[in-house]
């Protein structure tokens, strides 16, 4: 028997994500300093023991602001994935199970949308809706629906002709029961992989849009906004840019390693 190889992607991904989630949850209730407390003595102060990530141009503690901003970023990403999963599952299940003209329309739409990167589409949406956190969630959420629907659809099609589904049908199970109780639990790993990819795209898109000034609006904290403020002080306070940037990298890296790990797990 072949010895099981260590799934390093999954392990590292889970560790990173746990750290991120812990920091975001703690940051919601408690931060070392007030995220908006200014201290004119510490303007652009370098990292120190009291302020491990340094201070920004108003003397605010960067670590506290990051912990706060992570919450916003993760909230936007979670809502996006939530919208995509709920509507994507419904649409994917219906189109996959019943097929027909609706199936054809949804798939064509998906083909058309998938040619465009999500940042680009989100930008178009925002130019119509105006900037702001809720509009970002709305835009990214809608954009995530078709790609998730496609995953659910292909899983439904894969399973609906199999023996166990047929026998459930013979035993008189309703269509909804077959979809939600018999088929979807089997598709969980694929759906999770797709959701983590969607989460990452949302984090990236939110950060980019906020950096451009079209996403989350001040005074609400956001990692992208911090980076856009930090750019003016890059020379005198590089830590102001480095730490929020690294935080984004770690959030995305954690989730993408989990998704890679899940793929490896599924392939076995």
């Amino acid at each position, binding site marked *: 028997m072949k010895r099981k190889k260590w799934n390093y992607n999954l392990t590292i991904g889970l560790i990173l994500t746990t750290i991120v989630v812990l920091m975001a949850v703690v940051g919601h209730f408690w931060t070392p300093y007030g995220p908006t407390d200014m201290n004119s003595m510490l303007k652009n102060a370098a990292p120190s023991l009291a302020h491990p990530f340094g201070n920004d141009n108003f003397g605010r503690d960067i670590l506290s602001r990051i912990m706060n901003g992570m919450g916003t970023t993760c909230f936007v990403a979670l809502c996006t994935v939530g919208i995509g999963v709920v509507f994507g599952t419904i649409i994917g299940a219906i189109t996959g199970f019943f097929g027909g003209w609706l199936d054809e329309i949804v798939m064509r739409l998906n083909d058309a949308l998938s*040619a*465009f990167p999500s940042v680009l589409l989100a930008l178009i949406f925002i130019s119509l809706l105006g900037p702001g956190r809720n509009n970002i969630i709305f835009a990214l959420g809608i954009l995530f629906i078709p790609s998730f629907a496609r995953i659910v659809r292909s899983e439904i099609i894969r399973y609906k002709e199999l023996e166990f589904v047929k026998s459930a049908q013979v035993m008189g199970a309703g269509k909804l029961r077959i979809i939600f109780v018999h088929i979807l639990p089997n598709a969980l790993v694929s759906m999770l992989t797709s959701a983590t990819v969607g989460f990452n795209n949302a984090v990236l898109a939110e*950060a980019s849009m906020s*950096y451009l000034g079209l996403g989350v609006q001040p005074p609400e904290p956001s990692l992208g906004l911090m980076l856009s403020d930090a750019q003016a002080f890059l020379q005198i306070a590089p830590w102001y840019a480095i730490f929020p940037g690294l935080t*984004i990298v770690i959030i*995305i890296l954690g989730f993408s390693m989990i998704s890679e790990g899940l793929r490896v797990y599924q392939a076995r």
Partner: protein
Amino acid sequence: MKYMLKKITTLIITLLLVSVVTFVAFSVIPGDPALAKLGTYATPERVEALREEMGLNKSLPERYIDWLQGAVHGDFGESYQYAGVPVSELINQRLQVTAILAVMSFIIILVIAIPMGIVSARKEGTWIDVFINLFTQVTMAIPAFFLGMVLTYFFGLTLKFFQPGKFVMPQENLGACIRYLIFPAVAIAIPKIAMVVKFLRNSVLSEVKKDYVRTAYSKGNRTKKVLYIHVFQNALIPVITFIAMVAAEILAGSIVVEQVFSVTGMGRLLVTAISNRDYPIVQAVVLYITVIVIVINFIVDILYQFVDPRVRTE
């Protein structure tokens, strides 16, 4: 030929559809363009006169036809923000910049990603493969604009390889322009390398498992020869379809990265126009970008058909 005709028909329909969506979307936004253009000089008579002049009193389909006719000739009306400047003039200058930037990042991506993809497939399961996997995972997680800031700090502010913010337009000095664009191009390219590496690796690995490879081995060929002569030729074919996606990603990346390096390209124009609600510009830039993406997809489809005749019969 039948395949070509079918593809061209789809292309035309898609382009028309995109133009309708772009036009209608920006026409239903609340707000009166005539009022926006006049600003504080607006009196009811003036607004009415300008509405008449801008053709806003016509019905939506009529306005669409007018707009489309203009768009085909490269006329998108005038910007609200820069009074009197035609949108097409603003775009043409910046399109060149973004085109140079995109081509540069595309070359960087291919030069780095193709060897990496091949090596990681060839050394599947070894520490080199693991290392490349980790490398691509990390680079994929870096937002292009953050990478841009890191590059600005190290190569611009510390090592002084370039002067951040001192971008030169290609019309003035092409050499200086290209030199400045090296770092923005790297910032766009690095996060996208992973896409190509992964795709190529899978493509090579699935090709290796095919029967003709086994036949080649059984005839006594050596590993390297089979790999380089038989497998790569076929494994590179699916990568062509992938090029369209990479190109679209590069365009999206450049929108954000142009902002970091103060490069006056399409992306910067779009972002400023969105902030200023300068809709004629937004509309035109969106149409340009979508048309570029669609046309690249079309060219790739046609190209693919020449390289791999099997798709025609499908």
